[in-house]
């Protein structure tokens, strides 16, 4: 559950493994703060989403920093850290190219639209389940998914020319 969700966010096994480890360490450390009235799975899903988004942001920061350092300190002006390659074991080989392309556009979506789309479309959750995890109303989830799909279709159409 944790590993698969992290994988949908980062599309890379190494990063997903790192996030999974961080999630369980976080769960272990904050077990005392866990309120018994809420669902354990929902709580772990929330931690996974936050850790995944934090991981992506930290990677982007590192990428920007490496770009700057390569500009000023490297003679060859090459990037010191290559962008992570698409490595999603859940994707069948014949669909790899198409899904990689779709994920490139999903990664451009705002965080809440991306989360709603991943949970509903890829993790096959109902809108009520997504609403509980995201702490919003099912109506708001529906709206987020709709906006994400519209935006995604538009950008995909544009990229195809």
């Amino acid at each position, binding site marked *: 559950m944790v590993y698969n969700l992290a994988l949908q966010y980062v599309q890379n096994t190494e990063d997903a493994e790192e996030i*999974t480890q961080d999630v369980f360490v976080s769960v272990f450390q904050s077990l005392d703060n866990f309120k018994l009235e809420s669902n354990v799975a929902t709580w772990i899903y929330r931690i996974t989403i936050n850790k995944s988004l934090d991981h992506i942001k930290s990677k982007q920061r590192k990428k920007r920093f490496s770009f700057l350092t390569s500009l000023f300190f490297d003679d060859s002006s090459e990037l010191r850290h290559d962008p992570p390659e698409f490595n999603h074991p859940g994707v069948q080989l014949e669909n790899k190219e198409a899904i990689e392309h779709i994920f490139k556009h999903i990664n451009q979506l705002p965080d809440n639209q991306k989360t709603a789309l991943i949970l509903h479309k890829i993790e096959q959750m109902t809108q009520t389940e997504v609403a509980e995890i995201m702490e919003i109303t099912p109506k708001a989830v529906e709206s987020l998914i709709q906006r994400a799909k519209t935006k995604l279709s538009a950008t*995909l159409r544009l990229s*195809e020319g």
Partner: protein
Amino acid sequence: MNIDYLDTIRKVDAPPYLFTRIQQKIRDSHSATVPKKFAWAVALSCFVVLYVNISAVLYTTESYKPTTNIAQSMDLMPNNSFYK
């Protein structure tokens, strides 16, 4: 391109070594945690050092006599005027 391609993504099993790594990381994080008593002791020591420093500075500022007072006590001219 259709986003329905996303429906073809299958669930995968986490690598078998991941569980061991998580256990190790939890063990490491547990041992790296500073005990509360030690943290409080460090905080108290810092407070005492800071308090002693501040009070020392305040005490020396209060007990410091301006040069004028010293000059007067020694019957020295506090200024450059020769005529009183």
